[in-house]
C-alpha cells in the first residue's frame, strides 16, 4: 500500500491524475474569476478615500499574495528534491518559477499603476515594495541559474539550494527593509479593516487566481514531464551510436 505522496510522486500516475483534475481546476478558476470581475466592476462601491482606483486592488492583492505563496511552494519542492530526491519535486519547482515570476511582476506593475494616482508617483522605495522587488530578483536568479547548466540534474539541485537559501534570507530582507525605510506609506495595511463590501469580491478574486495558478502549474508540470520523456527517449535513441566505439574500424 503506497502513501498518497508516493503515488503522486510516480510520474505515470501523476500524468493520469493531473489529466483528470486539470479541467476541473481550470474551469472553477475561470468561473470564479469571471464572477470576481463582475463583482469588482459592477457590484462593489468606490472607496471613499481612493475612489474608483480601489478596483485595482482586486487584481493587485491576489497577485501579491500569489507571488509569496509560489515562492513557498518552490521552497517546499526544493526541499523535497534535495532530501527525498523525488524527481517530481524538481518538475514542480521548475514549472512554478516562471509563473511565480510573472505574478510577482504583475504585483509590481499593478502596484505602481495604483501608486501613481494614490501617491503621485509610480514608485517609492517603501519597505513592502522593496522587498517584493527583491523577491522578483530571487525569482530571476532561480531561472537564470537553472538555465546556466548543460547538465539538467545538476542545475536542478543547485537551483534547489539557492531556493532554500533564498527562503531563509527573505524574512530578513522584509524585516531589514522595514527597519531601513523611513518613509512609510500609510494605508497599505488594512486587511482587517477592509469593508465587507470589498472583502467579498477580493476573496473571490483571490481564490480564483489561486486556482488559476494551480491550473497553470499542473499544465506546466505535465509539459515538463513530457519534455523529459522526449529527451530521455532521444538520448537513449542515440546512446551507444558512437561507431568507432561500438564497432571495430572497417
Amino acid at each position, binding site marked *: 500500500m503506497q502513501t498518497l505522496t508516493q503515488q503522486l510522486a510516480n*510520474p*505515470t500516475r501523476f500524468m493520469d491524475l493531473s489529466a483528470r483534475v486539470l479541467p476541473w481546476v481550470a474551469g472553477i478558476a475561470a468561473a470564479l474569476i469571471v464572477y470576481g470581475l463582475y463583482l469588482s*466592476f*459592477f457590484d462593489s462601491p*468606490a472607496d471613499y478615500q481612493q*475612489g*474608483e*482606483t480601489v*478596483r*485595482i486592488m482586486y*487584481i*493587485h492583492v491576489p*497577485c501579491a499574495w500569489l507571488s509569496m505563496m509560489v515562492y513557498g511552494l518552490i521552497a517546499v519542492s526544493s526541499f523535497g528534491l534535495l532530501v527525498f530526491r523525488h*524527481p*517530481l519535486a524538481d*518538475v514542480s519547482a521548475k514549472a512554478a518559477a*516562471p*509563473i511565480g515570476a*510573472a505574478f510577482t*511582476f*504583475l504585483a509590481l*506593475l*499593478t502596484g505602481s*499603476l*495604483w501608486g*501613481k*494616482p494614490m501617491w503621485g508617483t509610480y514608485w517609492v522605495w517603501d519597505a513592502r515594495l522593496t522587498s517584493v522587488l527583491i523577491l522578483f530578483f530571487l525569482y530571476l536568479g532561480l531561472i537564470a541559474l537553472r538555465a546556466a547548466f548543460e547538465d*539538467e*540534474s545538476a542545475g536542478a539541485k543547485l537551483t534547489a539550494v539557492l531556493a532554500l537559501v533564498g527562503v531563509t534570507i527573505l524574512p530578513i530582507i522584509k524585516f531589514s527593509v522595514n527597519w531601513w525605510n523611513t518613509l512609510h506609506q500609510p494605508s497599505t495595511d488594512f486587511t482587517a479593516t477592509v469593508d465587507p463590501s470589498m472583502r467579498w469580491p477580493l476573496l473571490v478574486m483571490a481564490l480564483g487566481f489561486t486556482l*488559476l495558478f494551480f491550473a*497553470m502549474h499542473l*499544465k*506546466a508540470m*505535465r*509539459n515538463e*514531464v*513530457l*519534455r*523529459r*520523456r*522526449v529527451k*530521455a*527517449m*532521444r538520448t*537513449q*535513441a542515440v546512446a551507444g551510436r558512437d561507431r568507432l566505439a561500438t564497432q571495430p574500424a572497417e
Partner: protein
Amino acid sequence: MDLGPHAAFIWISYAAVAVVVTGLIGWLLLDGRKQAAALEALEKRGIRRRSSASAE
C-alpha cells in the same frame, strides 16, 4: 461605467494582467502541444521508453 479621473490606470492594470495571464496560458498550451507532438513522432519511429521510466 464611469471609473473616474484615473480610469486609464485601472484599465491598464487589468489589461496588463490579462495580457500576461493569457500569454502564460498560450505558452503553456503551445508548449504542451509541441512536447506531445515530439513524443508521438518518436513513438512512430518505433522508439520506446525504457520500461517504468522515471521522469528524468
